[in-house]
Every structure is written in C-alpha cells, then in structure tokens.
C-alpha cells in the first residue's frame, strides 16, 4: 500500500527496513488512519515476503526477521486496535513442539517461523515435551491446530500418545492435530488418527491453512 507520501509499506516490510516501517506506523496512527487498516497493510507485506520465500527469492533468516518486524509493528498498533474496540484477525493459533524423548528441535522451529511469517499466532514449546504439557497448554491456549514433531523411530509413538491424552482430556474435538518429522508420513498420521501430515514447512503451512479452512 502506498500512502500519500509515496511510502510502499509492502516493499519496506519485504526489505526489512524496520525503522522506516515503525516510523510509518506511528505516522499513520498520528494521522488517525484506522489501526486495523494499518495492520492490514502490514500483513500484506508479510504475505508477499512469504510468497517470495516459496519462490526461493527470500531466504529463511529474512523470513524470520520479517515475522519479528511484523510483531514489533503490531505491538505499536495493539493499544490503538484495542481502544477502537476492534480485534486483529489472525489466521489462527498453532501450538507446536517436538515430542517427549526427542531433541530434534530445528524442524518444529522452522515450521513455527514459517507459520508466524504467514500470519499465524504460534506458540512453540520446544523439544522433549511430555504429553501432559501438550494437554495443559492446549487446555490453556485453545489452539486451532497442534503440531507435533518427531524425528526418531523410538519417539514417533509419542505423537500417538499426545493424541490419546488429548482425547482423554476431552480436548481432541476442539483442536486439529498435524504431525511431521523425518520418520512421520501419511500412513503413520492415519494410523495414529492425526488430522494431517506435513512433509516440510511449506507443506505444513498449506495443510494447516486447509485445517483451519483457508483456501488460497
């Protein structure tokens, strides 16, 4: 979006010009532009950044920094949005973690930043997360989607354990579950009753969008 001064916020977000973006946000607020409109423009930037990542033009560190820049801009906007009685619409909330006994955490991390950059609210519990913890956090955060990562033959069963624990706690119906990691596959997802399998970060993003009912 280009405002009167000719500032292209989409390009500025994509080029990670943080100071300029934050100045622009403040300027827009001062000029009484509705905060949700400002947020909309920022999201547009993030979306283009995500597209460029999928096309191989933007690299992962840039994607991560773009997500962080967006977060800081939203912090500036937060009070104004609240005051206006509005609510920032997010694509959804995703809770993410690597299952108990498994310390491979780069995969879930990468999926988390990819989702954040695409506009999801993501809470990552890191690695070696016991089923009880997933249940507790699911009860507390009520995420739309729970993402479970496992890279070892000996820990993949824990993905099934989490699904069972959610069921036992009566939380299974409110939360879609997606599994991923080097040893997981569609057959395994079906076997343990997960709602989806994500082969990599981009596939995960697309599957999660489908789970929350976004088609693009």
């Amino acid at each position, binding site marked *: 979006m280009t405002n009167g001064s000719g500032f292209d916020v989409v390009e500025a977000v994509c080029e990670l010009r943080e100071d300029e973006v934050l100045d622009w946000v403040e300027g827009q607020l001062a000029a009484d532009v509705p905060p949700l409109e400002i947020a909309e423009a920022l999201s547009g930037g993030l979306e283009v950044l995500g597209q460029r990542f999928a096309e*191989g033009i933007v*690299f*992962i*560190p840039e994607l991560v920094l773009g997500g962080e820049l967006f977060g800081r801009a939203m912090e500036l906007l937060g009070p104004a949005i609240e005051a206006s009685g509005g609510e920032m619409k997010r694509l959804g909330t995703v809770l993410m973690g690597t299952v108990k*006994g498994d*310390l491979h955490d*780069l995969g879930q*991390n*990468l999926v988390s930043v990819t989702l954040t950059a695409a506009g999801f609210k993501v809470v990552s519990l890191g690695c*070696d997360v016991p089923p009880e913890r997933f249940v507790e956090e699911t009860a507390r955060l009520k995420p739309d989607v729970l993402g479970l990562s496992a890279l*070892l*033959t*000996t820990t*993949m*069963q824990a993905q099934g354990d989490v699904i069972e624990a959610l069921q036992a706690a009566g939380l299974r119906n409110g939360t879609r579950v997606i599994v991923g990691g*080097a*040893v997981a596959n569609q057959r395994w997802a079906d076997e343990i009753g997960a709602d989806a399998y994500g082969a*990599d*970060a981009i596939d995960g993003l697309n599957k999660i969008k489908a789970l929350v009912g976004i088609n693009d």
Partner: protein
Amino acid sequence: MQPRLSFLSEPEIDRIVDGAFHVLAEIGVHIGSPRVLDIVASQDGVHLDGDRVTMNRDLVERSLKSCPAEVRLYRQDREEAIVLAGDRVNFVAGSTVPYVHDPAADGLREATARDLVNHTKVINRCDHIDLQSGSFVPSDVPKPIVSAYRYYLAMLYSPKPMFSGAFGTDDMEVIWGVMSALAGGEKELVARPLALLCVNPSSPLGLTEVVAENTAFLADKGFPTLMIPIPLAGGSSPVTLAGTLVQHTAENLATLVVSQSVRAGSPVIFGGGPSIMDMRKGTACQAATEAVIMGAGIGQIAKRLNLPSSTNTGRADSKCVDYQAGEESGAALTTMALARINLIRGSGTLEYANVISTAKMLIDNEICGMAKRLIEPIDTGDEALALDVIVERGASTAGYLSSPHTLKRFRDEFFVPSDLIDRGPRREFEEAGSKDAFARAQDRVGEILADYTPREIDADRKAEADRIIAAYAAKHGMDRLPITEIQ
C-alpha cells in the same frame, strides 16, 4: 611426503580451541542428568548454575591429558586391530536410517530387518569399508527395540567392528549385553572392543540426560565413545564456519570432561557432523561444501588436542543414486581421507542420512578404495624412480609392458577398482547392456546376496546373544523376532 590437507594454520587452530575454552568458561553446557551433574560438579574448576555447568580451562586441559591418543577396534574374526590414531584413515558404513532406497517402490520404502541383513551382507564384501554399522532402523519390530536389535543382527551377520549409537539408556544396557555375549564376556569386550558407540551432544551446548548418562555408562566401562555433535551453521550454531567450529569443539570438550570425570583414561573420539542449514530450503544438508571444510577442520583440531578423529562428512543429500550423489560422497570421502580423519562416516547414504542405498554402498566402497590410494605417498625410492629401467627401455622398441619391473610393481602401484568402475572398451560396455554404474551396482547386489555363505559363529556366544535380545523383544510384546539365524 604424506599427502595431507590443511585448511587452518596453527595460530588459526589456536583461535578456535581458545574460543571453545572461552565458551566453556563463560556459559558452559547444560547437563540433563542430575546424577552425572553431581559427578562433574565434584571436579575442581567447575561452577554450577542450576543445570548449567561452566568449566575452567585447567579442568578441560586436565581431562584432555587423561584421554588416550588412540582407539583400537577389533573384528570378530581377526587378531589385528583397526587403529584410530594419527594419520590413519578408516571408513565406516553410513547408519541408522528409516528408509531404504528402492527404485521399484518409487525410490523409497520403510526399511525392514531383511534390508538390514542384506545391507550387512554387502558391507562384508566391501573391502575398503573397515567398520560396519546398523544401517537401517527396521520398521517390522516394536519401536523400543529397534536400536538393540540392529546391533544384534549386524554383529551376527558381519565380523567387522560395528558402529552406531543407543537411542536411550534402556537400549544401551541391552546393546552392552549383546556385545559382551558375542565377545565372550564383558572383560573380553573391553579388552578387544568389537564395536563402537556414539553419543550426540545437542547443539547448542546441551548434554541431555541420555547423552550424559550414556557417556558416563561407557566411561565407567572404559569403552570407547565417539562424540558426535551436529551443529548446523545458522540454525543451531553461528552462521560462520569458525564460530560453528568453536561451538562444536566446546561440545566435544564438555562431553570429554564428563567422560574423564567418571573415569580418567576412558577413550573418546573427537567427532561430529557440523554442517549448514540450507537457507532456502531449511534442510540439514550433510554434503554442503562447508560441511567438507569443517570436516577437515575437525581433523586438524583433533590432532591439536591429541585425540582420534571422526566426521559424518561423506553423506549425500541427493534423493537418488545420480551424478549429484556421486559428486557429494565422492568429494567428501576423498577430502576427509586427505584430511586424515581416522573414522569417516556416511558411505551408502542419501537424503541427508535419512535413506540408504545398498547399491550406492558398493559404489562408495570403490570411492573409499581410491581415496585410500590417493593418500599414499609417492614412492621415490631407487626402485620406484626406475632410472635403470628407463635407461634400459626408454630408447628401445620393447616398451615397458614386458619389463620385469612392471611385473613386479604393477599390482601394488595401481589401485584396481572392481568392475563397477567401468574402464573397459566400449564393446564390453555395450555387450553388458550399456548399463551405468548404478545399474551395475544393483546387479552386483543381487549377485552378492545370491552367493552368500553364512559365517561360522561360536554357538554358545550366539545363544547368549539370542537370549538377551529375545527377552528384550518379549518385554516389548514380540514373541518371535523376524530374523535370528544367520542364513
């Protein structure tokens, strides 16, 4: 002159090693086992901050001094040792993957115990591969027993020393039992290790409960431990090669302090698989050029620390056995040999160590043979210089083919690859069906499996190993394991 490759000058190695000391003294490592934490905390030079442990340089240097400079491993069927030390180069087959490359099944299939056995039979015939490995994680047995069952099967089917790692602490005990049974007792096993186990510090700077416990377990037995941190530059370590090597060295040193705190003098191997996170795809590339550079760096750092060395570099990232796979494993295995790494991992693997191809194992075996030839010095002794021979034959029409000098030296002077490496005339190539190396290797796998003769093994030792693995399988709900006989 011994051909040898260096990427770092002595002062540059100093900067990396000093950097590692600095990191250990400043932020140290996380140790996930309270029991092991207590053992380390009783050392002078340790400072505890919750479950983080910082270590001063003195302690680390003391620990380094007590580590042996060499590790010896033994085949089940031979007296002489395979030595990991100094400039020695040994190759170990790639390990622990869930998938087997199978062109008939769209390129990929979940591996079974049968795949592991077949692969092990092929490794037996790979003359340039010194150590075998638990290649596949079989999908047809209960998940908790996969790791111990791999040791059992691989050690039944091949006498070569076995390398792999335990997944947890439970299976470590069972693996120990199986190895001891096959060695004829625990004392015999420690005196002549028939296998090697690894521990994997979790980058950045984490010795998890399993790593700490298993390091302590092996140290307590006085059994060799291969340390394998896998920092991925830009993902779990600094994006720069030097920064990643600093962190990687610190992770090795911290593990070694644990080992030496449990029992001074226990053998450790300075190893690892530092690589990069691909910044476009987010994959843990194992064959990146930077992995090769850092692998060579490990060799130099290990030598400075007077420890045996190992690297993962040799793994391929390609999804199939193609030119890319050949380039990746070829360049990495050769460079690691030139860097004089004592134990070079990765042959047979594809897709960043998620897949193994048994046919590729055979081709990689040829590369390893060539790499071993490559690092032999050029003999410039009188006979090799061949002045007499040149004077006698150089001006005659007889040529050199009929020279006694040729007859005497040709078998030793040249490395003779198997038929997998095609150097023949086009006529033979066409008569054999114009097959490429991969197709030839697939044929060869079939021939090796068809012509397998079961090896002899002490019946009492096998019975004891059978008993241990059967009890473990029964505990996890399996009455009959898919394979327990050598056939």
